[in-house]
């Protein structure tokens, strides 16, 4: 253990925590005014519920002793043994700090999914879904990649959560959107009610992402610095990629496009942030912005109502990022080469991790949603959907002007 690394990761953990209120703002601005609080509540409820479940069982299922490459055992249940001693996965950090840093990732991932079911899912159903999803989906997938499970062992590269956070929330979002069905009157009426909120939230997400990606080095050093710069450059190029495509496609660049492109670039660089060099990172972000623009158009083509484009941005951006890591990884950065540095096998490993993540998360999420639907019902009543979930689920309104 050492103090600089510990201090660095403590700061990064608080930065990742700030991403959750930022996500609430980002999503909150995109919905209609009558659902702004319910959409915020999805994120804040995750801060409450997922944090507690993480301490009780989530952490140990992800980072306990490996069982068959699939899940951790109950060694750290109720945080037993998680104290000031060195963390098994990162001996430079106290175990508590490592656990707390990982806790923020879990909360953010579960909150990300809410963009798919916003404006129609009952609050009680959302709570039950989030609890089950954390334990049955997030914790195992985190174990596969970072906790000593099969995906990490076969050599899949996922620096800060391309599979664990973004692909998994994207696949879960697709399953949720399909299971819930579209919002009533989908179409021209779903106009964001407050884009400045969305832009502010998106900007804060970018800031928090430095904690997310650089912090995933788990030490204050050159690798964290590399991740900081690749992250920033990919986000910058994501803006350009997105607005160039939309300028061609619809005639004008939009502010929502700029912030969406930034997030697309950030998502895309997440798995490779500590494996690729800066110029490839810029290309990953630029293409990420373009890919995700195409990704959000898919929902009208395939008819699922992924309300706030979790599939398009996190699902596709994360998938592109995982693949791109296999293309652009460089041993000079972090010991592993990708296709363009003479190691084509890495692409196959990345493809296997993509297929494994999508398949497991999608199927498991469909089952969980089915279960939750049978237990408490997924959707609010149509009358409540018309009048808004703020009033219907929470007895309050966002704006009493």
């Amino acid at each position, binding site marked *: 253990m050492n103090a600089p690394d510990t201090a660095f990761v403590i700061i990064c953990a608080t930065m990742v925590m700030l991403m959750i209120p930022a996500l609430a703002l980002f999503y909150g601005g995109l919905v209609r005014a009558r659902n702004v609080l319910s959409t915020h509540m999805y994120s804040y409820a995750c801060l409450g519920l997922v944090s507690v479940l993480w301490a009780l069982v989530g952490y140990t299922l992800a980072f306990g002793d490996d069982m068959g490459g699939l899940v951790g055992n109950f060694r750290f249940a109720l945080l037993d043994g998680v104290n000031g001693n060195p963390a098994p996965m990162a001996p430079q950090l106290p175990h508590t700090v490592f656990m707390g840093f990982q806790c923020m990732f879990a909360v953010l991932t579960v909150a990300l999914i809410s963009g798919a079911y916003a404006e129609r899912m009952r609050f009680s159903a959302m709570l039950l879904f989030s609890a089950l999803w954390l334990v049955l989906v997030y914790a195992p997938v985190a174990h596969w990649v970072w906790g000593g499970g099969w995906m990490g062992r076969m050599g899949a590269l996922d620096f800060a959560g391309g599979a664990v956070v973004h692909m998994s929330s994207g696949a879960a979002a697709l399953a949720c959107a399909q299971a819930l069905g579209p919002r009533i009157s989908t179409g021209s009426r779903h*106009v*964001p009610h407050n884009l400045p909120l969305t832009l502010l939230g998106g900007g804060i997400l970018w800031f928090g992402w430095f904690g997310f990606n650089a912090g995933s080095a788990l030490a204050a050093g050159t690798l964290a610095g590399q991740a900081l710069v690749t992250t920033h450059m990919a986000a910058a190029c994501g803006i350009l990629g997105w607005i160039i495509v*939309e300028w061609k*496609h619809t*005639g*004008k660049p*939009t502010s929502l496009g700029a912030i969406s492109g930034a997030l697309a670039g950030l998502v895309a660089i997440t798995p490779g942030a500590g494996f690729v060099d800066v110029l490839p990172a810029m290309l990953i972000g630029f293409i990420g912005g373009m890919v995700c623009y195409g990704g*959000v158009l898919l929902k*009208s083509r395939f008819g699922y109502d992924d309300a706030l484009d979790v599939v398009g941005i996190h699902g596709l951006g994360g998938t592109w990022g995982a693949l791109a890591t296999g293309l652009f990884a460089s041993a000079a950065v972090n010991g592993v080469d990708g296709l363009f540095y003479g190691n084509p096998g890495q692409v196959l490993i990345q493809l296997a991790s993509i297929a494994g993540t999508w398949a497991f998360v999608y199927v498991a999420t469909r089952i969980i949603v089915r279960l939750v639907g049978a237990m408490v019902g997924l959707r609010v009543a149509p009358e409540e959907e018309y009048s808004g979930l703020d009033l219907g689920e929470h007895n309050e309104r966002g704006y009493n002007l």
Partner: protein
Amino acid sequence: MKKLEIIIRPGMFEKVRDVLSELGIHGLNYTEIKGFGRQRGHTEVYRGAIMQVDCLPKIKIEVVLHDNMLEPAVNAVMLTARTGQVGDGKIFISAVEDAMRIRTGQRGDAAL
């Protein structure tokens, strides 16, 4: 007494209010409204989804005048609020039977 319902572009409100004040009209009400006429709406684009917005924001001023103020007022509004493009708005003119100033109980023209 005549009542004018003046529908104008939102950006014209301050100029129209000023010009009516200069004519000696010292009271009016306005409302922010949305509607459509011959002016086509506009498109908005959110993440590549193109949405046609048909109802546009306008300002509706309601003002009640002495009969002899009618022509000066409508002419002033026309000169002020006009751009010559579709969407400048309309004025609806109607007769008002009576009025009362609640504070004093005055009726008719004296109440304006």
